[in-house]
């Protein structure tokens, strides 16, 4: 029995049918209103998640999708229960919304509202986007609501977690201390107290214990923060543990953003690569979410991030510590050297002495022997120099430097020292300028020390100067002696200058060209110390590529020097000591310098050959395996590099040119590229530029190798973006050291980039980045999965290849183009667009995007994500279309309206040009309906007519392969062929065909229903009209009837007019309490009873008294009001009685109004048995009587008398109109602005009723007609004279009709009608013949007749016609 209601879904329908509906306020389904049935049917047939509530208790219904997505364990318990009981836990949230819908009738919309549902056995945090819309019953009143809902829990929670992970990775600084790193990370964790109500981070101590490092959401002093409560042993093994939070330690736990605290915690280790964990993270878990894979993954990722931060910070700390250790080592080294230097001097002396001797003795010996002796000698000198310098240092540091300051002519001494270097400088091809001005007074210096100062500076200048000059100068500046040594050499980078005088500091080889890489890095440091001992200063100015200038300033006099170390002036005149000859200590400097120069290079052994002693820390690959790509066109070099790097533990790929290298990097980015600069196709600089220009490869480190030894080349290489630059030939160890340094630097640098890439690739949603022009420059794996376009095609400039084709699908193309416009034009947004997969199939993507500024380039880029919503899109499209169609069909009250509405809906769904519906019935042409009213069957092209006809017998509701946009379905009257004319060349896909079938199916159902309704309504109308009143009224009456409850045609009001055998007329107007069908059935009974009672006894009062008894038997009839009267149409005498009914209105021809308010008593059945009075009135000639029900005159907030007065005025204003026109006037004039809201019955009578006489066209009839007319005129209350004039004029017209009109057919009927208004008479005489046109010359007989008519009446029109002649006459009535 209930299959019809619940048939749309077998499963839910069965459970719904099992509900004991009789126990609910809705009662058994057989009694449900159509509106409820329709709503339930729509609900059940929808695959979209919906529930609805109906009736006073808001009885709950839902469909299968809702059961699956939301209801959970509450099914099937919830069916048929009050909604407030079903959703008691969230009623505070949704109750007010439902109330709003029910009271205002307006729909609500909530996006991602947080609701705690009890559907899985616990209170669950869920998010729902939903809309409540009103449901109306058959009368249009809101009696329930429908909720369409999408659960968004996964999305909202996923986004929240992703935000936390993103924030964790957003640390702007690269290097922090461990503490800073953890503080930053926990600030981020603290912002997500929903997923992480509290966290505790512990770090393992060396003793195996754990120390609380950070906490969020919980005070550090909380009992739960004590280390002992957590399973440390399992965690140090690297295992995650779920800990139930039970026991004393976990009392009064904080609850984060929630009402109640967590009931369990997930404790995860902070893992360290290849080593024991750093510590562990305790994450208090949100009790309102299950600990599923996603939640666990989130906590583990969070822990992973903490671990990565700790790793980074610790590695930085380790570096710091190493630097400090090195400094310590340096100090130790100095001490060591100073201690042992003494010990060197003795053996050195013992070597150098014999060597000198041998050189003298073996002057004639073999050349090779001499050369070897020379080498021994030279290196002996060098070693001696070094030992001396170190000794000097240790002396200075120990404060044991034995200085002997004597006054000297500093200019002369300096110039002499300089001259020692002249030959070496000359040989180097440099200009040597010495400009030492005489100084006004001597300067106190220790000669030995000063020698070392000048020689070191000159040695340094020659070492780094390849062209130009070296200048030495002395002068007085600011009262001090100033000595300068300047060169035009390679110079020193600005950032190196402060460190120039540091001990053992050497400017990096890669940065500066030098004649030699030899050097202890101690010379300038010593110079500075020595100058300092003199109370002087030394400064350096330098510019890279231009040269360096050292300036030494010494004060005059000896006041600044320790007195015991100052010698007296040499001579009595105090003349300073002049040149005392350059000491032998200058020799090592000069010898060393000469050896740098070209002539001696040839026989210099390779001093810097790589250390072959096996790999050291710097020459092995990093711990994590690294891939290196080698690019060199020289096969030998390629093989050498490959061998070298493999030997150090790298994975190596080798290619022969830059182009191949670029391809290889794009395919799989290596950790380092080692490339030659000079290569065919694409050289090293081009390769660097290409890699840097592509965001995906921009971060790959590149080490360039070049044989070009000039400075510009390296600058060029670095400017192109190379990370490092080495000259060939290079030392193997250095290459390996730099390779490792670059790989590790890049790893450090790329840490965040890699973290980001991993995150982006792990996204379920497709991810993309667009540049300012809209070109897609970065995508993730999901992007490729969804669209089929991979990273190998990047960048994808607009128009992107996944755009729908403009030619074949302009509408979709436009949609995408529009969305693309917002993407470039707005800061953020979302859109859903159609796109084409690489393999051609159509999908729908829902995207959201944000504009951001690239922190590195400052350029604006768009970052977006999207989901494949194809299935949802089509589902929503289907549901929307079905719902809209159902709505249209439900609204339609007739078959044709249903079809019209459905066609309009179909047109809207496909934005079609038009939709045709041809109904084939029998043999004739079909009945055509179209959304375009101009179209008819005949106007269609013949081909289309044939196509439509051919589909007539096509199987119903199955798509036609030939005409995809057409479908055949059953129509109640025959076979209906639907045809959709698409407006553009828009593809009609399989999805569209499915939708068309679905809609056609629904339409067929709807049409059948509408047809049934049509037939029911016709039957109902016939029945209604039957109970309303007489269809034929006596002449002189006009009635109007307007029921309040549409589409009913009857209500509780009625009127009745009946003619007694004696010619009197009974008049009844009544008003039952209430309206609508119930009142109408009562009305029908009362009307019939009243009519019968009056016919039996023509006394209004007695009829009403009997009616009292009748009405008392019908509960709903009590209090009905009735006006009941009996009229004598001859005399105008009216006898009447009123049962509580408003008074009749009598409008006299003179304009006065009288209320017939006599004969009044109570409404029906109030006092059955009580007698009722009767009143009498005479209706004067040409007066009008109005009877009515209170619906005509009763208005809110207005006395009834006002309405009655208004009705009286309306009657008076229309007293000169025919009663039927007057009835219309009254109804219109009294209608409220929104139409009548109560039943209205109205009855008008004007006395006397018009006279209508029909007689045969024979002169013998004239007298009889005149008698009738005379009698009627008498009832009209006219003067004798007027009466006579009318009689003659009418007589003439009748005579004409008899004589002329029926000359050839005597005996045909002539009709006379006379009607009186308040001050006017109208007469019409019509025959069926043709009058002769009156002649100009008056006919002795009839000519007088027409003239007489015109003279007697105020207006006469004679209208001859093919079917007869009509004479209309009017005359005013003097009052």
């Amino acid at each position: 029995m209930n299959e019809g209601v619940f048939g749309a879904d077998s499963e839910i329908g069965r459970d719904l049918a099992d509900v004991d509906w009789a126990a609910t306020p809705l009662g058994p389904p057989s009694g449900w209103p159509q509106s409820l049935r329709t709503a339930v049917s729509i609900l059940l047939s929808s695959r979209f998640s919906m529930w609805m509530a109906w009736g006073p208790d808001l009885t709950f219904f839902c469909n299968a999708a809702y059961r699956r997505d939301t209801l959970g364990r509450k099914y099937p318990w919830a069916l048929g229960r009050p909604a407030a009981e079903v959703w008691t836990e969230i009623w505070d949230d949704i109750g007010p919304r439902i109330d709003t819908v029910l009271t205002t009738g307006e729909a609500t919309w909530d996006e991602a509202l947080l609701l705690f549902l009890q559907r899985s056995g616990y209170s669950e945090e869920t998010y729902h986007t939903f809309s409540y819309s009103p449901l109306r019953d058959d009368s249009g009143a809101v009696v329930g609501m429908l909720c369409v809902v999408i659960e968004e829990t996964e999305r909202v929670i996923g986004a929240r977690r992703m935000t936390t992970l993103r924030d964790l990775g957003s640390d702007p600084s690269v290097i922090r201390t461990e503490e800073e790193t953890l503080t930053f990370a926990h600030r981020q964790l603290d912002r997500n107290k929903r997923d992480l109500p509290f966290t505790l981070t512990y770090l393992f101590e060396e003793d195996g214990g754990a120390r609380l490092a950070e906490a969020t959401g919980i005070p550090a002093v909380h009992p739960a923060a004590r280390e002992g409560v957590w399973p440390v042993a399992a965690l140090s093994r690297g295992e995650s543990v779920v800990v139930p939070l039970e026991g004393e330690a976990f009392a009064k736990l904080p609850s984060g953003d929630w009402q109640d605290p967590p009931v369990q915690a997930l404790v995860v280790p902070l893992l360290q690569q290849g080593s024991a964990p750093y510590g562990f993270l305790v994450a208090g878990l949100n009790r309102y979410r299950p600990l599923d894979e996603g939640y666990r993954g989130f906590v583990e990722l969070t822990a992973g991030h903490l671990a990565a931060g700790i790793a980074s910070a610790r590695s930085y700390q380790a570096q710091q510590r190493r630097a400090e250790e090195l400094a310590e080592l340096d100090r130790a080294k100095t001490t060591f050297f100073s201690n042992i230097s003494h010990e060197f001097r003795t053996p050195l002396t013992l070597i150098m002495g014999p060597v000198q001797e041998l050189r003298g003795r073996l002057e004639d010996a073999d050349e090779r022997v001499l050369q070897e002796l020379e080498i021994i000698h030279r290196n002996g000198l060098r070693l001696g120099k070094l030992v001396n310098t170190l000794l000097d240092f240790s002396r200075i540091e120990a404060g044991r430097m034995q200085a002997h300051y004597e006054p000297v002519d500093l200019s002369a001494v300096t110039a002499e020292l300089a001259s020692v270097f002249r030959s070496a400088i000359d040989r180097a091809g440099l200009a040597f300028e010495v400009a030492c001005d005489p100084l006004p007074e001597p300067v106190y210096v220790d000669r030995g020390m000063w020698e070392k100062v000048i020689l070191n500076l000159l040695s340094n200048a020659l070492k780094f100067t390849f062209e130009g000059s070296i200048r030495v100068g002395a002068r007085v500046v600011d009262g001090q002696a100033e000595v300068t040594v300047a060169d035009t050499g390679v110079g020193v980078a600005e950032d190196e200058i402060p460190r120039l005088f540091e001990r053992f500091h050497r400017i990096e080889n890669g940065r500066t060209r030098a004649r030699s890489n030899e050097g202890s890095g101690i010379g300038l440091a010593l110079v500075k110390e020595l100058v300092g001992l003199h109370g002087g200063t030394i400064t350096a100015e330098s510019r890279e590529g231009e040269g360096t200038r050292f300036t030494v300033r010494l004060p005059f006099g000896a006041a600044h020097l320790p007195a015991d170390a100052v010698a007296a002036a040499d001579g009595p005149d105090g003349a300073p000591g002049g040149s005392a000859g350059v000491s032998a200590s200058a020799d090592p400097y000069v010898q060393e310098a000469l050896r740098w120069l070209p002539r001696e290079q040839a026989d210099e052994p390779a001093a810097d050959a790589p250390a072959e002693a096996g790999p050291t820390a710097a020459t092995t690959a990093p711990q994590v395996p690294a891939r290196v790509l080698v690019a060199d066109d020289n096969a030998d070099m390629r093989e050498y590099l490959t061998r070298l790097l493999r030997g150090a533990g790298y994975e190596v790929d080798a290619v022969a040119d830059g182009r191949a290298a670029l391809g290889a990097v794009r395919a799989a980015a290596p950790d380092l590229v080692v490339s030659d600069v000079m290569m065919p196709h694409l050289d090293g600089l081009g390769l660097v530029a290409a890699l840097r220009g592509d965001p995906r490869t921009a971060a790959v480190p590149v080490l360039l190798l070049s044989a070009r030894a000039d400075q510009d080349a390296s600058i060029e290489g670095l400017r192109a973006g190379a990370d490092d630059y080495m000259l060939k030939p290079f030392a193997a160890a250095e290459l390996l050291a730099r390779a490792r340094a670059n790989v590790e630097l890049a790893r450090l640098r790329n840490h965040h980039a890699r973290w980001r890439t991993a995150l982006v690739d792990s996204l379920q949603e497709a991810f993309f980045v667009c540049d300012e022009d809209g070109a897609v420059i970065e995508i993730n794996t999901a992007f490729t999965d969804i669209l089929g376009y991979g990273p190998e095609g990047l960048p994808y400039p607009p128009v992107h290849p996944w755009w729908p084709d403009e030619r074949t699908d302009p509408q979709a193309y436009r949609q995408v183009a529009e969305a693309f416009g917002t993407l470039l034009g707005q800061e953020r947004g979302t859109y859903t667009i159609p796109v084409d997969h690489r393999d051609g199939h159509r999908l729908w993507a829902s995207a959201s995007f944000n504009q951001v500024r690239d922190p590195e380039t400052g350029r604006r880029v768009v970052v977006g994500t999207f989901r494949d919503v194809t299935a949802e899109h089509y589902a929503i499209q289907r549901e929307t279309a079905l719902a809209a169609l159902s709505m249209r069909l439900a609204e339609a009250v007739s078959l044709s309206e249903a079809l019209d509405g459905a066609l309009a809906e179909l047109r809207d769904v496909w934005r079609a040009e038009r939709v045709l519906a041809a109904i084939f019935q029998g043999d004739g042409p079909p009945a055509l309906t179209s959304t375009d009213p101009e179209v008819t069957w005949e106007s269609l092209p013949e081909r289309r007519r044939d196509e439509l006809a051919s589909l007539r017998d096509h199987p119903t509701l199955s798509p036609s392969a030939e005409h995809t946009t057409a479908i055949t379905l059953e129509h109640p009257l025959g076979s209906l062929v639907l045809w959709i004319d698409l407006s553009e060349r828009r593809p009609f896909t399989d999805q569209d065909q499915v939708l068309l079938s679905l809609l056609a199916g629904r339409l067929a159902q709807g049409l059948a229903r509408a047809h049934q309704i049509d037939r029911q309504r016709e039957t109902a109308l016939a029945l209604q009209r039957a109970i309303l009143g007489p269809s034929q009224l006596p002449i002189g009456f006009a009635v109007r009837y307007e029921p309040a409850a549409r589409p009913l045609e009857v209500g509780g009001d009625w009127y009745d007019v009946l003619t007694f055998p004696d010619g009197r007329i009974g008049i009844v107007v009544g008003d039952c309490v209430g309206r609508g069908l119930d009142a109408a059935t009562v009305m029908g009974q009362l009307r019939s009873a009243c009519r019968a009672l009056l016919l039996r006894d023509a006394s209004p009062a007695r009829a009403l008294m009997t009616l009292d008894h009748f009405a008392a038997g019908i509960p709903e009839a009590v209090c009905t009001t009735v006006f009941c009267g009996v009229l004598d149409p001859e005399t105008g005498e009216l006898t009447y009685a009123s049962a509580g009914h408003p008074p009749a209105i009598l409008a006299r021809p003179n304009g006065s109004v009288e209320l017939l308010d006599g004969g009044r008593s109570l409404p029906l059945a109030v006092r059955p048995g009580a007698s009722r009075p009767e009143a009498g009135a005479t209706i004067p000639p040409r007066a009008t009587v109005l009877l009515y029900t209170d619906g005509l005159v009763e208005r809110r907030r207005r006395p009834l008398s006002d309405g009655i007065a208004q009705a009286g005025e309306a009657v008076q204003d229309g007293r000169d109109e025919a009663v039927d026109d007057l009835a219309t006037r009254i109804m219109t004039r009294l209608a409220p602005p929104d139409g009548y809201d109560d039943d209205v019955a109205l009855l008008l009578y004007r006395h006397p009723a018009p006279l209508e006489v029909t007689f045969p066209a024979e002169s013998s009839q004239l007298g009889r007609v005149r008698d009738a007319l005379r009698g009627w005129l008498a009832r009209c209350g006219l003067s004798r004279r007027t009466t006579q004039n009318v009689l003659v004029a009418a007589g003439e017209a009748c005579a004409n009709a008899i004589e002329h009109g029926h000359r050839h057919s005597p005996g045909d009927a002539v009709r006379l009608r006379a009607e009186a208004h308040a001050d006017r008479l109208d007469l019409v005489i019509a025959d069926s013949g043709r009058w002769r046109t009156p002649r100009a010359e008056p006919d002795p007989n009839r000519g007088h007749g027409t003239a007489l008519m015109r003279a007697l009446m105020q207006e006469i029109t004679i209208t001859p016609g093919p079917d007869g002649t009509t004479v209309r006459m009017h005359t005013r009535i003097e009052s």
Partner: protein
Amino acid sequence: MTTPLTLTPGRAPDGTAVLAAAGEIDMSNSQDFAAAITAALDGAAGPLVVDLSAVEYLDSAGLSILFRHAERLELVAPPVLEPVLTLSGIADLTTVRPVPSSADGT
């Protein structure tokens, strides 16, 4: 059925010929009226007084007969016929006397 009309010829006290009509004169009985006037005129040398005092209705059918003999007729008419006689112009051609007050039924 013909409209009732009574036609009574006679003489006035002064000997003038009189035709007294009573009833209604219309197309159905105008022939009778015409015949009576012709007969009365034939029997009289002087004018004929047509006494319409008792005529309640007279239309163009009767008027046309009066017009035909207007020069020899004198009319006695009740107020009810006055508009018709005036409007038709017959009152300009013949003498129309009101009904003596004693005979006036009003």
